[in-house]
């Protein structure tokens, strides 16, 4: 068990009303390459900035080497950062940029000289000392920024989407170099990116974040092969995410068929999410011996493989990747191996809101008063739990015609329907199952019919 160099303990941070980090705790092992991965706005950069000392958490503690540094200003922290836009000082040349931190430490000139030459060699920029930083290409500026950060010999190197501004080819080269640099330096790297491929390539450990919360922590293979929830499965690589039912241990039903799987302990007849990677579905011309049959809808050449969409016999759409092409409209047989089926607990099975009875036929939740069927056993003002099934929420084109309005925040295709996350104007989430096609960012009105509102007594 290696010691932890960085510990985040229950970190929360809000800007105004918006909660950026929600009770985040995590440990970083000494010497590891840790990547914080997530879509923009998930709080990953904020987490990194808190570690560097730009801003302080609303609550929680940050420890480096066991020392509580939560209130330390940036210049006293044993970390250095490679900034997204490099932030090289334009009034200094390459040498002076790299020597900046060393001069502040009052290091003797010949030692500075040696150190600068060393790090320049490490980033393959020997003989660039006297160059003006603004005359350098993006890739070279990137290297100077890395050299400047490692010249101080920090205990932890922080990298904030350092490759985002580079073109694809350069990015690939830099990834390899960063990985080698990490090996050579032996220090801890904390790397922030939204690029899942970059994260899978570089990291020892990946932290997937969304909406200010850690979704999963694991090695790249863990994260890819065993995503813990639908968000992670969707965010990392391509996947088929489907509603399923765990019939009993090692037997799961989805797309209208029963499959053997390797998962246990979910219970019997429990609703689950099922993930099957498109490259894990075996596709063949013969229908005999297949677990299910399907008809090819489209087939696109993607370089290494073909990407096909098929309609299964029970009307679900699946994505399949295979080295062989199958003609559209051809009948194919499909096989899925038990080990390739990833079963996940559903995060929720219906919408649950906290509400309050207004009168017998009205209940207030999400800041609005909704009509409901006549309820007995409740008095006005009673706190209640309101449940609405995903499929019972009406979305309409015109936000002003809905009881509530919001926008489509996240969408997931589940083989035969879309599972949408709607962010209301008040910042609440509503989950909706629908066959209609919406796009991310669409403004929608939200209505709920009285008969679809289920009211449950609060336990407390």
């Amino acid at each position, binding site marked *: 068990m290696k010691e932890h160099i960085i510990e985040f303990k229950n970190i929360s941070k809000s800007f105004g009303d918006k909660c950026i980090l929600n009770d985040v705790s995590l440990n970083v092992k000494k010497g590891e390459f840790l990547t914080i991965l997530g879509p923009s706005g998930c709080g990953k950069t904020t987490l990194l900035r808190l570690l*560097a*000392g*730009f801003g302080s958490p609303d609550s929680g503690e940050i420890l480096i080497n066991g020392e509580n540094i939560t209130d330390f*200003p*940036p*210049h006293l922290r044993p*970390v*250095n*950062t490679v*900034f997204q*836009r490099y*932030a*090289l*000082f*334009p*009034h200094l040349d390459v040498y002076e940029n790299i020597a*900046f*931190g060393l001069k*502040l*430490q009052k290091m003797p000139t010949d030692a500075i000289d040696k150190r600068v030459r060393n790090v320049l060699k490490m980033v393959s920029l020997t003989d660039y000392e006297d160059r003006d930083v603004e005359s350098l290409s993006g890739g070279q500026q990137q290297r100077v920024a890395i050299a*400047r*950060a490692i010249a*101080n010999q920090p205990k932890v190197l922080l990298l904030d989407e350092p490759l985002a501004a580079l073109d694809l080819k350069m990015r690939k080269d830099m990834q390899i170099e960063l990985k080698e640099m990490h090996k050579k330096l032996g220090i801890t790297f904390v790397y922030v990116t939204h690029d899942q491929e970059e994260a899978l390539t570089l990291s020892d450990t990946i932290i997937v974040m969304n909406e200010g919360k850690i979704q999963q922590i694991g090695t790249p293979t863990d994260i890819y092969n065993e995503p813990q929830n639908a968000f992670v499965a969707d965010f990392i690589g391509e996947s088929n995410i489907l509603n399923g039912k765990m019939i009993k241990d090692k037997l799961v039903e989805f797309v209208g068929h029963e499959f053997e799987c390797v998962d246990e302990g979910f219970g019997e007849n429990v609703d689950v999410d099922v993930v099957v990677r498109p490259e894990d579905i075996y596709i063949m011309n013969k229908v005999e011996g297949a677990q299910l049959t399907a008809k090819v809808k489209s087939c696109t050449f993607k370089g290494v493989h073909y990407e096909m969409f098929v309609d299964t016999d029970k009307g679900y759409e699946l994505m399949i990747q295979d080295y062989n092409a199958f003609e559209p409209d051809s009948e194919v047989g499909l096989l899925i191996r038990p080990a390739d089926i990833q079963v996940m607990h559903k995060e929720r099975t219906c919408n649950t809101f906290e509400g309050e009875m207004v009168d017998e036929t009205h209940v207030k939740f999400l800041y609005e008063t909704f009509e409901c069927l006549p309820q007995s056993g409740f008095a006005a003002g009673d706190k209640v739990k309101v449940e609405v099934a995903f499929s019972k929420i009406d979305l309409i084109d015109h936000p002003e015609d809905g009881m509530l309005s919001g926008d489509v925040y996240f969408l997931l295709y589940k083989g035969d329907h879309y599972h949408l996350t709607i962010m209301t104007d008040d910042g609440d989430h509503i989950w909706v199952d629908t066959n209609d096609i919406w796009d991310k960012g669409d403004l929608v009105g939200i209505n709920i019919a009285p008969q679809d509102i289920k009211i449950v007594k609060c336990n407390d």
Partner: protein
Amino acid sequence: MTKRSTWALPYAIFLVFFVALPLCLIIFYAFQDGAGNFTLDNFTKFFTDADAIGTFALSLEVAIENTAICILLGYPAAWILANKKLNKSAVTIVLFILPMWINALMRTLATAELFHMLGIQLGKGTLLIGMVYDYLPFMIYPIYNILNKMDKSYAEAAADLGATPWQVFWKVQVPLSMPGVISGVMMVFMPTVSTFAISEFLTNNKIKLFGTIIQENINSSMWNYGAALSLVMLVIIGITSLLQDNKKEDVSGGIV
């Protein structure tokens, strides 16, 4: 004649009549005596006249002092205005810039009246106060502009590399804001060298500046000597603007 370059014609005419021609006339007159013969007398007269040289030196001194005071007062003011933690409203910026909207002559007259009311003896002190009051916004604004636009990540990078807030300020923010300081200097120093109204009103003509002598000479029809003096001043201003040209950095912070 539908070429786009013809659109520039009005500007060309303007430049010829209001810039090139007067400049040529100044040079033309400066090298002539009263009868219209070529001569260098106007310049020898200036460089051998202790009084004129004295005034010239005093003008430079006042201009340098004024500029220095404006930097000392204006830089911190601009820094505070540009700092979002210290200044949360745009109104304060407008308050600082507001005096620029009022005619300088009127402000100067009002200042003189104020000194008079308070019974303060007019002299070099009042001259400097009046000048600083007139020119301070011209120093604050370009510096504020450049500080306000400066990428915050430079300061963060410096702090990250171990610089204390004081070191961040001196080693990163000050050098990076130099273009703003230089345009401020241009906008303060050059007009102060040539000003004459301020010294007239705020010292009751006790202190004469270079601008005053030029004005007096031209008013008393000594066109040739006046032109020579103007040429000397142009050269000084020309030298100051070289200061700016040497810096290749973006000085877009300059114009209001």
